[in-house]
Every structure is written in C-alpha cells, then in structure tokens.
C-alpha cells in the first residue's frame, strides 16, 4: 500500500530541491577550486533531491509505514486561523489589544467554559506579558493605534 504522506512530502521536498538547483545555477555555482555563492545551495539542493527521491520510492512502493493519523483537526485549524488574524492586526491594534482578543479566542476554542475566567485570563496574560517583556525586559512590543494617545 502506498504511503501517501511520504509520497506527497517527498514530492514537495523534491520540487524544493529543483528550485534550489535552479536558484543556485542562477547565482553561479563555480567549481570546487573557486566556489561561488551558488555552490553550497547547489549541494543542499542535491541532498534534498537524492533523499526525497528515496523517500518517494519507499512511500510509492509501500516500504515505509504510514505515520499520518490526523486527530480532531478543527481545534488546530481554528488556532491557526486566530494566529493569522493576529498577524494581520498586530501592528494596527497593538500588542495588548491584539493578544487580549487572540488569547480570549484561543481559550474559547480550547473549551474554557466561564466567560469571566476567559476575559480575566486574557486580560492578565496580555497586560502581564506586556509589563514583563516591554516595560521590565525592554522588548519592544507594538503599541498600534494607542500610540496616538501617547501610550
């Protein structure tokens, strides 16, 4: 039986390897005596091509064990959705508001039952980490539109 996860994974790696070779040739590979910027990416691309081909053959011929067994996929997908939204709004709304919304949503997705706990946890987490990292540890976190109010 074919191992489709290996077949698909290896195809992706193979294409990446081909891309690396093309990129390396464009950069000029040079020779072992005079290696050019494309030399090392060329080697990395070759490694990818060789081993992805072996993985592909093992998967296609059913010599490797199928590993993929997706469990409940909704929660990971929703978490990713929240993270994508956070990336989109982080600069505009700033760290505190962005993470307050995101952590509230994540807790809700993950099954936090009480609204009070959910809001309180999100607030403590966003404010607490902001004070710890930005104010105490000097990590520069985005302020967003709150900057207009001098915050």
């Amino acid at each position, binding site marked *: 039986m074919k191992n489709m996860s290996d077949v698909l994974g290896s195809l992706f790696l193979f294409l990446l390897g081909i891309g690396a070779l093309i990129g390396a040739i464009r950069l000029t590979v040079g020779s072992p005596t005079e290696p050019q910027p494309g030399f090392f990416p060329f080697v990395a691309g070759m490694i990818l091509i060789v*081993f992805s081909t072996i993985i592909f053959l093992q998967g296609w011929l059913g010599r490797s064990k199928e590993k993929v067994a997706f469990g409940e996929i909704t929660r990971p997908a929703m978490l990713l959705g929240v993270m994508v939204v956070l990336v989109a709004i982080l600069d505009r709304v700033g760290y505190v508001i962005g993470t307050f919304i995101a952590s509230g949503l994540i807790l809700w997705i993950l099954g936090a039952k009480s609204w009070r706990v959910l809001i309180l946890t999100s607030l403590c987490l966003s404010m607490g980490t902001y004070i710890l990292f930005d104010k105490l540890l000097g990590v520069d976190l985005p302020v967003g539109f709150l900057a207009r109010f001098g915050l």
Partner: protein
Amino acid sequence: MDFLANLSQGFGVALNPWNLVFAAIGAVIGTAIGVLPGLGPPATVALLLPVTYKMDPASAIIMLAGIFYGAMYGGSTTSILLNIPGEAASVVTCLDGYKMARQGRAGAALGISAMGSFIAGTVSVFGMSLVAPSLASFALKFGPAEYFSLVLLGLMMAVYLSEESIVKGLAMGGLGLLLGTVGIDPVLGATRFTFGISRLLDGFDFVVVAMGLFGISEVLINLEAPEIRDVFKTSFKGLLPTREDWRRCWASVVRGSLLGFFIGVLPGGGAIISSFISYAVEKRVSKHPEQFGKGAIEGVAGPESANNAASTSSFIPLLTLGIPGNATIAMIFVALMIHGIRPGPLMLQEYPKLFWGVIASMYIGNVMLLGLNLPLIGMWVRLLTVPYHYLAVVVVVICVIGAYSVKSAVFDVGAMVVFGVVGYLMRKGGFPPAPLILAMILGPMLERSLQQSLISSGGSLVIFIEKPISAVLLAVAAFLILTPVLRRLWGKQKPGVAVEGSGG
C-alpha cells in the same frame, strides 16, 4: 591546581546572588515543563530567549542550562504518576516507574529518580570540568578540513539518533542547510534566495524557526487529541528509597551516570538515547531481567541517572567544539550568539568566567533540584491538574513575543506561524525537526569550512581524507549513515533476525 583555580573562579560567578536566582528560576521552570507533558525543553528554551536579551550572558546561559537539566528531573514525575513521559528522555521511566506507582511505591520511584539524577548530574559536571579544557585545547589544532568533518559528524549523529527514519532525517538536514543559505552569503557577500524581500537579507532567524517548529507545532499536535490526564493518586510518604532499594540499584546509578556522561559528550548524543541504552544495559546485567517492565527499581534508577548525566555532558561539544548536539543545546548556542559569543575552542580562553560559571552553576543547580523535587512533589503533581488550554495560550503568546522581538517585525510572527504549520506537518509525516534546526545553525559553519578547505587544497576533496582527524571523523559519520543500509542487507540475508532498535 588549574582545575581547582578554574572551578573556584566559576563558583565566584555562580554564587553571585543574581546568578543563584537565575539558576533557581531555570531549575523551577525546567522541572515544571518536565512535569507538564506537551512542552519540551527545546521549545521552552526557545520561548525564553527573548527574556535573556537584556541579561548578562552568564546569567542567561545559567538559567537556560537550568531549564534543560531541570526538565530531566521533572520528566520522571509524569512518567511515574501518569504513564505519560513529561519529556522524551523519560519515556523508558514509564515502563517500571508507573508499575512501581501502581504497586504503592511511587515515593520510592520518585525518590530514586531524583537522587539518581542528582548523583549523575554531579558526576557529569565533575567529568565535564576535567574533560572540557583538554578537548577545547585539542580542538584548537583543528583546521577547516577537520572542522568540516566534525560539523558533518555532528549532523550525521543528530540524524542517526533522531527517532524517525534516517533518510527523512537526511532530507531534513538538506532542508536545514538550504534554509541556512537564505540571506547574505557568509563568504562572498552575495544575496541568496531573498526574492526581493528585504526582511530576508539576514536570513531566517533561528528563534523564529525554532518557536514555529517546536513551540507552535507542539501546541497544534496537542490540540488534536482530547486532554486525558489520569493522575495516579497515591501517597508520597517515604520518598527516600529504602536500604534494600539502594542495595539493588546503586550500581545502576553508577552505570547510568557513566554511560550518560559518555553518550552526552558525543556530538549528536543526548539524554533520550542514553536513557534507552541504560535501560537495555540494566536489563541485560540484571539477575532478574524478568522483573523489568513489572516495577524493577533498576529500570528507573539507571535511565533517570543516564538522561541527567547526558543532558549535562551534552554541553561539552557546545562549549569546547562549538557543535550543538541536540535541539535544546542548539537553542543555547543561539542564546550565546545573540550575546555575541561564539561557542567553540576559543570560548574557554575568551570567556573563562562564563565557561566556568556555567559549569559551577550546574553543581549548584543539581543541589537546588534535589531540594525542589522531593519536598515539593505535591506541588508538581497539582501542576498536572492545570488544564492544557492555559499552557497552550501562554505558549502561543510567548511565541508571538519571541518572534516579534527579534527585529520588531510582524513579518517574523507570520514566518513563525508558517514554520509552525511546517513543523506540524513534519511531525505528522514522521520527518524529525531536530536535524533541520541543527543543519540550519551549522550550515554557515559547514559552508565556510568546506570552501576554505577546497580553496586550500586547490579543489581536491582528498584533503578531507589526508588529514587523520578529519578522516576518522568522516569514517564515523559514514559508518553511522551506512549502518541501517548494512543492517537491512544483513537482515535480508538472514531472514528471521529481528533488527533491534531500528525504530529509534
């Protein structure tokens, strides 16, 4: 005398009140993440990198090191009480530790694992103090060819010891090398694979990649399965092992300590493999191998000692050769680089206070961990009742801070999310993430030494075989990678012979 003078200099640094505080913080965080399943030491060290930006380098490394060896102590608690390894190096502890707990001997299992870890950690730190300086001065003689072969061996060991297939590990190594080429070429200064995106000129940041591959992907994997934590309720009275327990397992502790130390020293060696080997050794030398898997205390004492000794000694290749042997040590390598310190043979000469301070802090850290683990066992068990969603949301938020803090750019947060998805798919498909991150970190070093060697030899690859040290290192690397092929051939010739341990 040098040894004592160096160590006293180290204790001078480690006993600084702030460094004591950071060692304690590291030990507490390490124990906590060791106890909690679903967050491993590499992810935690990656998560805490932003905290260390403004810290003194010695304090930063002391804290991060504490997390690593603290996790080895904590991991056993979850294995013994939940039959779930708190972290990967405690997998084998489940076999006998949980059985002991079910027989009403949880206290003895926890006690022997904490004490065994303490003894092993101390033995390993002592060994490290003796070995590290000689290894560093030996490595000073290395030229580019030797360095190339050493880095290659480190990568091959990481591939060989990764739990998944070796071919997949090699492919991930190739991908890591390719990702490491993004940005400005370290030798000739050309721009590579940036696709016009100025943010990529410095390449992908290790922190961003590590947080995605280890932090976000771990959360995604954990969210797939419903959360079931059935903590085995038992009394923790009598945490000290009995005289009979000690009689049975003192030799296991000694063997585990020595085995763990030597495996940890190997580039690519580490806590996980040492615990498995120790278990196999204990079972083989035992007069009652049939008791293994049914609650044999030697099956807890040996592996727990070994994983602690190995986690400590795996600092040796990092601090003396500049080669991170596993993913957690790779994160500590990144932490050193963030502070402008290049780990390697010169570190001992350039930063003796840091070098010996970190070693001395490990002596102190082990004492702290013994104090933290046994008397506070009830607290660690209560930690297991905290629902996973609180941990997940904290991990996500800290990952966002960590990725953003690298260059104050949302672009990096987006890149981290992408690497999180990549890491998730990799784990699902059985592609190990550790060779990728190690190859990415070691790639520029490998490229530089390869080019320097080839230029000096006029393009001839013979240089790597002409130099004896390089030839030996390459031979070992080739042996490691060819072993599974030879095993397979051997297996085909002799059907019916089971290939032991091929699954890692």
